[in-house]
């Protein structure tokens, strides 16, 4: 592509990486950390009520994403890049306004209203942004592009993130988001030749149909998409359920993500980058089931390490634990950014992405939050909690191991990776 001096395509890659990286950074910092601080410290909500509010956010986002993804498919907006850019502009504008007013919210009622509006923006944002993959990123490069998005977002999160206070996070995000709104406005409403070029790319064979998409324009949910949703749900669920408890354990946060020592946070950031690049390479060149196997395997190993430390709670927790955590998170985030476009066609991408991200990511967050609250109110200890999460990770690991060892006939026909006896 560089050799051909295909600048519109390169600009498209840059646009997609920038947009998704900023969006994801906003999600992992402002939405996940800023809102917790706003509800807890500023408004004074109890832990349980705050967790319920966050679960509501996940649930509404999930429903909006599904409804809007389906609407986009029916209106054929999935194949219109200009329409997607206009929608993205509206979403980012709404999010910018919401971010600006967030620190001044002082009551629970306003907080819940804020959450409802934020869910609307996030829910529309999911199918809109993910469906731009078919316009902007060639199938062959999706793993690498996803790796760059993950690397940028997760390097910035531990290294450049301000203190986890809503005022600081809002201040940091506002500058970036205002610039993004302006940029998206120009791209969406000013007639630019390179946008016209990009808008046609989804009709090319190297862009439109994903690696794992079946032939034809099937709009029904097939077994492969369902399997991927279940696997990704498992990953998000295990991650969220475990992290919800670890984030409340000061010894693990202060020695890693919240460490006052910048070299520790830099180490976590670099681990994220290296793991994301590995994931990008493996996603492109390897069978995705093997990647899932690695993810569940490392999750199980990492939770077992935390369990060992909990059972012998002396001394500083070793950095190997957050290192493995960062690795796993980067691995699955790369898969999440690339996989939904790869099981879709330009026509089906909006609903498939909404299904995938909403049902796996947001539903898993919703259920795991509810479960974590229930376990905590039942008096479950950290050790018991992590034991269960670890058992769950092992269960998924074993299931994936069986799928890798005994692949179905269809997989043999449709997937590469390695050839026996050649």
């Amino acid at each position, binding site marked *: 592509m560089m050799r051909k001096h295909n600048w519109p395509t390169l600009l498209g890659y840059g646009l997609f990486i920038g947009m998704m990286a900023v969006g994801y950074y906003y999600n992992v910092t402002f939405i996940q950390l800023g809102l917790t601080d706003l509800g807890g410290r500023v408004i004074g909500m109890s832990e349980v009520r705050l967790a319920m509010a966050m679960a509501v956010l996940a649930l509404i986002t999930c429903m909006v994403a599904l409804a809007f993804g389906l609407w986009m498919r029916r209106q054929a907006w999935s194949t219109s890049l200009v329409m997607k850019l206009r929608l993205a502009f509206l979403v980012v504008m709404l999010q910018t306004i919401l971010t600006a007013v967030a620190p001044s919210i002082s009551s629970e009622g306003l907080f819940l209203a804020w959450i409802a509006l934020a869910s609307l923006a996030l829910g529309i944002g999911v199918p809109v942004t993910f469906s731009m993959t078919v316009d902007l990123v060639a199938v062959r490069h999706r793993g690498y592009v996803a790796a760059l998005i993950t690397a940028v977002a997760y390097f910035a999160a531990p290294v450049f993130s301000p203190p986890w206070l809503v005022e600081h996070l809002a201040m940091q995000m506002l500058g970036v988001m205002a610039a993004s709104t302006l940029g998206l406005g120009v791209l969406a409403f000013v007639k630019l030749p390179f946008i016209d070029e990009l808008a046609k790319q989804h009709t090319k064979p190297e862009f439109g149909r994903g690696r794992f998409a079946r032939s034809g324009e099937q709009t029904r949910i097939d077994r492969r998409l369902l399997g991927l949703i279940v696997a990704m749900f498992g990953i998000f669920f295990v991650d969220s359920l475990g992290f919800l408890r670890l984030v409340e354990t000061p010894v693990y946060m202060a020695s890693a993500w919240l460490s006052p020592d910048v070299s520790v946070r830099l180490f976590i950031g670099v681990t994220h980058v290296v793991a994301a690049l590995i994931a990008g390479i493996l996603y492109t060149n390897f069978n995705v089931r093997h990647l899932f196997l690695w993810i569940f395997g490392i999750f199980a190993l990492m939770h077992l390490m935390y369990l060992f430390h909990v059972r012998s709670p002396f001394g500083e927790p070793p950095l190997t634990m957050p290192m493995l955590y960062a690795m796993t998170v980067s691995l699955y985030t790369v898969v999440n950014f690339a996989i939904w476009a790869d099981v879709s066609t330009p026509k089906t991408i909006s609903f498939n992405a909404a299904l995938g991200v909403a049902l796996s990511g947001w539903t898993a967050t919703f259920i795991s939050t509810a479960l974590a609250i229930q376990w905590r109110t039942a008096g479950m200890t950290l050790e*018991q909690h992590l034991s269960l999460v670890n058992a769950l990770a092992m269960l998924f690991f074993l299931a994936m191991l069986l799928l890798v060892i005994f692949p179905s006939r269809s997989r043999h026909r449709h997937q590469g*990776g*390695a050839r026996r006896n050649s």
Partner: protein
Amino acid sequence: MKRPLVILLAILAALITTACDQEVYSGRLILDGAHSVSAGERIDGELAVVGGRVALEEGSTVTGSVYVVGGTVEIAGDIGGDVTLLLGDLTLEPRAHVHGDLNLGGGRLERSPEATVAGAVTAGIGLQVPAELPQPTPRERLPRFLIQTLFVALLALLAVRFMLRAVARVADAASGHPVVAGAMGLLVGVVGLSLLVLMAFTIVLIPVTLLGILSLGVAVVYGWIAFGVLTGNFLSRKLEWKLRPTTAAFLGTLLVMALMSALEVIPLVGGMIAILISCVGLGAVFLTGLGTRRFVPAVDDLEERQAKA
């Protein structure tokens, strides 16, 4: 279903059940810091001390055995099982009572005559580890290097003689897809070593850890041999020598091993390059399933099929 796979899965499932149950590995592992167990307090299960300082005061109890692998341990209470000293300092105070054996493998023991040991006192070969290992001189390193290099080169010769196709597949993966192989090798290395260290801490899984280290080592050497084969073939092609594959592999591996040793001389960067080469080799071994299948990148495979269609 293949029988060995069934057995493997059954063992794996059994291991999971043990790993997830908190009652199986009850005990304490001390890595650092100062800790004391007061009178009336009890530690259920084993106590392993790798570092730090632990004082088991009079009236305290450890129901299992105590393993001292490092650090300082002072015992004045009751020990239900054995006390094993491998490294570090152990003091048996006058009120100390060991119900099992006292095993001495190394370290420093200070035992009060009043301290009681119900079982036998066994002494093995002392394990004396100096604080800083002396750096070998170049003259001392030469024989080790020669033996190591010749050994790996001979292994390469045997590998090419008896499993040429397998080695060729690994070499193809390493040369054709070095980035993919490097990424896979790095992942296997980091996760594999973390797993092995974790297993070593369980103490009961130390034999499995040793087996794992051996397997990982064999895979790394297999990767070096693949590079040796590539180097040997390259040389015989460029210099137009008519070498047999075994001879080319032998000479190539000699060169690769010499290069790896030479890299050690360059500070920091040399070591990193050596690790990188090992990672690519290790990854190639894994990508090809120890050389049992040819590695084809998924995207290439897809495009090939699309083109055929």
